[in-house]
C-alpha cells in the first residue's frame, strides 16, 4: 500500500481523474496548493510597481493505491499531466502503514 502525492497544473485535473478512473482507481483527495519551483513565477506590474509572483496555482492529488498498482498509477498521472512545459509538477510516493474506511471499519487493501 502506497500513497501517491502528485502536484500538477490545475487544468490537467480532469484528464488525470479520467486516466485514473480508466485504471480502476476510484478514490482520490484533491487540494488547492500554490507551488514554487523552477518555473520561476512571473513578473507583474501592479499600479506601476513591478513584482514577482512567486507562487503559482497548482493542484495536489493524494491517491492511496495497492502496491501492485503503484507503477501504473504513477505512469498514468505522468502521462495525463504532462504538457512538456516547465511547471508540470512532481509525483512523490510514500509508504503507508495502514488505512481504514470510516464507514465500514474495513482496513488494508479492502479499504481503498
Amino acid at each position: 500500500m502506497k500513497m501517491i502525492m502528485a502536484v500538477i497544473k490545475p487544468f490537467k485535473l480532469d484528464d488525470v481523474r479520467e486516466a485514473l478512473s480508466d485504471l480502476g482507481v476510484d478514490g482520490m483527495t484533491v487540494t488547492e496548493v500554490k507551488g514554487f519551483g523552477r518555473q520561476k513565477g512571473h513578473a507583474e506590474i501592479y499600479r506601476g510597481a513591478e513584482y514577482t509572483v512567486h507562487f503559482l496555482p497548482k493542484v495536489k492529488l493524494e491517491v492511496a493505491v495497492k502496491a501492485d498498482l503503484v507503477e501504473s498509477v504513477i505512469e498514468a498521472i505522468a502521462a495525463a499531466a504532462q504538457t512538456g512545459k516547465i511547471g508540470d509538477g512532481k509525483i512523490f510516493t510514500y509508504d503507508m502503514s495502514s488505512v481504514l474506511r470510516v464507514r465500514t471499519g474495513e482496513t488494508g487493501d479492502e479499504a481503498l
Partner: protein
Amino acid sequence: MSKFKNRLRRAGLSGLALSAFASLSISPAMAGEVSETAYIFNTLSFMIHGFLVMFMAAGFAMLESGLVRSKNVATICLKNVSLYAVAGLMFYVVGYNAMYMGVDGGFMGTFMPWSGDNADALAGNFDGGYTAESDWFFQMVFVATTASIVSGTVAERIKLWPFLVFVAVLAAVIYPITGSWQWGGGWLAEMGFSDFAGSTLVHSVGGWAALSGAIILGARKGKFGADGSVRPIPGSSLPLATLGTFILWLGWFGFNGGSQLALGSAADAIAISTIYINTNIAAVGGVLAAMVLTQLIYKKVDLTMVLNGALAGLVSITAAPDTPTLASAFLIGAVGGVLVVIAVPLLDKLKIDDVVGAVSVHLVAGIWGTLAVPLTNDGATFAGQLTGVAAVGGFVFIASSIVWLVLKFTVGIRVSEEDEMLGSDQAELGLEAYPEFGRGSQTI
C-alpha cells in the same frame, strides 16, 4: 425638425407624447406652447431616468462578474467600465447625429459630432420641450446598454482591445443606423413600426451583435465535449449576479419610464407611472415563470435562470410598457421568462456559447416583446412589427458579422488557448480579481 420630435412614436402614442405641448401652458405671458415648468419637468425626467439607466452599467458589470469564472472577473469588470466609456464617446463623436440628424424618413442621419443648442429656451421659448443636453444624456446611456449586452455573451475568451473596437463601431455606426430608422424618424417609423423603449432597437440590436460574436468567436474551451455534450461552467459569485439583476431592474424604470420623453403634463405623469408598474410586473412575471418552469422541468429552481427570467420579462415589456394592463404586462413578462428557460439550453444545443444568457434574454425576449405590441396597442400591426424585427435583425447581424470577421482576420479576436486556461485576468491584465483566494479550485 425640433429635437423634441426625436423618438416621437407613432401608432397612437403621439397623442400622449405631445401632450406636454398642450397643457401646463400656465403662463399667458409666454409666447410658445410649452411652459417653462413643463420644460423643467421634461428635462428632469431625462436626467433622473438617465442616471438610472447609466447605473445599469454597474448592473451589467455585477451580473457578468458573477456569471464568469473568477479567473476572468477583473477583465469583465474592465470591459464593462471601458465599453461604457467608448460607447459614450463614440455616440458623441458621430453616433447621436447619425441617429437623429436629418434622417427624414430615410436610412441614416449625419455622421458628425453632436452639439447642443438651447438658444430658444434661453430666449424664453420652450417649445424644444427639454434641454438638448438632457436628451443627449438619455440617448447616450441607451447605446451603452446595447454594448453591455455584447460583453456578457462573448466573455471569457475575447481579447480586450478588439472587443472595444467592436463596441466603438457598434456605438458609432450600427446602433445609430437602425436607431435612425425608427427613433430618428426614418423609414421604419414611417412604415408604422412600434418600439416604445427599445425591445428591438436596443435589446435585440445588442442581442444580434452578441449572437454573431458568439458564433464567430466559438465556444469557450471545455464548454462542449468532443461527444457533443454540454459542460456547464458555473459562475463565480451568485450574490453579485443577483445584485446586478436588481440594479438592472431598478435601471429599467429609467429605461422605460424616461422613454415617455416628457413629464410636463398630467398625461405624461399618468403614462410614466403606468410604465413603472407595467415594467415592474413584467419582471415579476418573468421571475415567476422561470421559477415554476425550472421547478417543473428540472425539479429544482435554477437561480441563474430566475435572474435571466426577470431580465427577460423586462426586455419583453420594453416595446410597449405603456399600453398593457397590469395583467397583460404580467403575462407578456411571463412569456419572456418561459422563452429564456427554453432558449438557454437550445443555444447550448446549437453549440453557441453565451456565457451569461444575454442572447436568450435580450434577443429572444426582445423579439417576443416587439411582436407582442399589437396585442395591447391598436396602432401597431403584426406585419409592421415583423418587418421591423427582420430588418433590424438582418442589418445588425450582417454588419456585426462583418466587423467581427474583419477583426478576426486582422488583429484576431480570441485569446490563445493557453491564456484561456490561465484566465484573461492573468493573461491580459496581469492581475487577479480575488488574488487571495485559492486558484486551483477553478477547475475542480
